[in-house]
């Protein structure tokens, strides 16, 4: 009896091995199919939209960078008009913007006018330094001079109201009309990503002030370092790239340049679909194992009984033959 049971168990073991080979083959096929499907996710239209979105993201970043460095050169004219005395004239003007400097050549009625003019420039909040390169008294008693003004770069940020005759309604650039000296009030999280493989992009709800992310199964939620992009000049706590425990929702507080704040609740969860699929496959494995074990047991017991009965009938036949003398 034990022998037949053992033999049946051997058959069941081999069967089990073959079933695993089959299952592995099927899983490999499923992975291959999923790889192909993953590559094909996204229609051509969606991929075009992706290009456009990222193109504009880059453009907006570039535009922001250029605006930060943008200078309003014409502000200098208003400054000169305001601070030039009536008895002083300029006949040469040069302004290399990279040096924040104005070189002027002019004529003053008297030396006193020149000194008052220099003093007026020195008192101006936008003038850091005034240098008189030279001055010379002419034949008519007028003073020719060369001045060099070192300007505070802030002068190029300030914008004066435009003269009425040059207002262009159709081409007005609203970004230009903004007052750059005002502290920025924007305090938005514009992107929130987890640098995993593949990268996980957070879904930001600007109305509810929430960020939700779905990470693959097996990701350690207790140590994630998100990449965060904010409105210009805004700051955030915890700081970007800092390792944070996301096992529970985390509150990120964004502060604008003007000091105002707003909070975002960031929730990171294991991808529900993957969790489901993992659970499903786990329960499937359990069922398969139960079936295989049951099948192996039934086969083993069945074969054992079959061989035992067969042997018993053979023994009976032998006994009958011995008793009947055949």
């Amino acid at each position, binding site marked *: 009896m034990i022998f037949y049971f053992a033999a049946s168990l*051997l058959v069941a*073991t081999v069967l089990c091995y073959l079933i695993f080979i089959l299952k592995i083959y099927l899983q490999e096929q499923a992975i291959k199919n999923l790889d192909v499907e993953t590559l094909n996710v996204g229609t051509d239209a*969606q991929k075009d939209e*992706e290009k456009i*979105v990222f193109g504009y993201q880059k453009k907006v970043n570039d535009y922001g960078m*250029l605006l930060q460095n943008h200078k*309003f*050169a014409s502000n200098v004219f208003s400054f000169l008009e305001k601070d030039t005395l009536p008895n002083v004239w300029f006949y040469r003007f040069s302004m290399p913007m990279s040096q924040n400097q104005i070189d002027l050549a002019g004529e003053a009625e008297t030396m006193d006018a020149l000194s008052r003019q220099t003093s007026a420039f020195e008192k101006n909040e936008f003038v850091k330094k005034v240098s008189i390169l030279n001055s010379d008294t002419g034949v008519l008693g007028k003073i020719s001079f060369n001045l060099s003004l070192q300007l505070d770069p802030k002068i190029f940020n300030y914008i004066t109201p435009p*003269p009425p005759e040059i207002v262009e309604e159709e081409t007005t650039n609203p970004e230009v009309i903004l007052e750059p000296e005002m502290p920025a009030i924007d305090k938005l999280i514009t992107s929130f990503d987890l640098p995993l493989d593949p990268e996980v992009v957070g879904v930001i709800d600007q109305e509810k002030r929430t960020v939700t992310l779905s990470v693959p199964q097996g990701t350690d939620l207790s140590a994630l370092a998100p990449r965060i992009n904010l409105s210009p000049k805004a700051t955030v706590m915890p700081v970007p790239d800092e390792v944070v425990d996301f096992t529970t929702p985390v509150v990120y507080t964004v502060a604008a340049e003007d000091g105002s704040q707003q909070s975002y609740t960031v929730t990171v969860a294991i991808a529900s679909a993957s969790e489901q699929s993992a659970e499903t496959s786990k329960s499937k494995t359990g069922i398969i194992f139960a079936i295989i074990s049951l099948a192996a047991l039934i086969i083993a017991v069945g074969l054992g009984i079959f061989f035992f009965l067969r042997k018993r009938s053979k023994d009976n036949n032998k006994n009958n033959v011995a008793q009947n003398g055949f």
Partner: protein
Amino acid sequence: MDFNRPIATALILFTIVLLIFFLVVPKYNQFKTLQQTLGEKQAAYDAKFAYYSEIGTIYAKLMEKKDIVEKIDNAIPSELSYGSLVYFFQKKALENGLIVKGLFLSKASPINPDSDLREIVFSINLLGEYTALKSFMASLERSSRLFDTNNISFGTMVAPVTPASSSSSKAPAKSPVQIQIIQTYPFQLEIKTYSY
């Protein structure tokens, strides 16, 4: 066929153990690993699906703000057109009472080696009054296209006429900067704009 059944049973059991350890268990482990890989791939697939869905949402929001998008497009055009730039400078100069004496492209190169954003620098020689230059500068600064000024210079070799001697001029008798009421000047401007 006669054989020793206890020994055969022992051999079979031993074989079973060997089979389990060397064949079944490794296959089981491989099966589990593949199962995990499958879960991860499924998660990656779902994440990619969600990603494109999010891209679609962002795209829709972007299209809702088309006016702002167009302004950014105008500020930094995707394609560089020298012709339209030259036309723009000439048009604006004329509108503001300036004569374009010369217009030269002095530089067209990326703002840094890693960027595809290019800066295009034009040197412009203009002739006109000081007020016309101011209007021209304001036109550039208020244009939907982004212009930066690298350099402004103007002047004359002739000393200016004083207000007293220029009383016959059509310009106002008193002005904050006397340079503007006297005569036309040659202006040299270096203007920078951007394009991809």
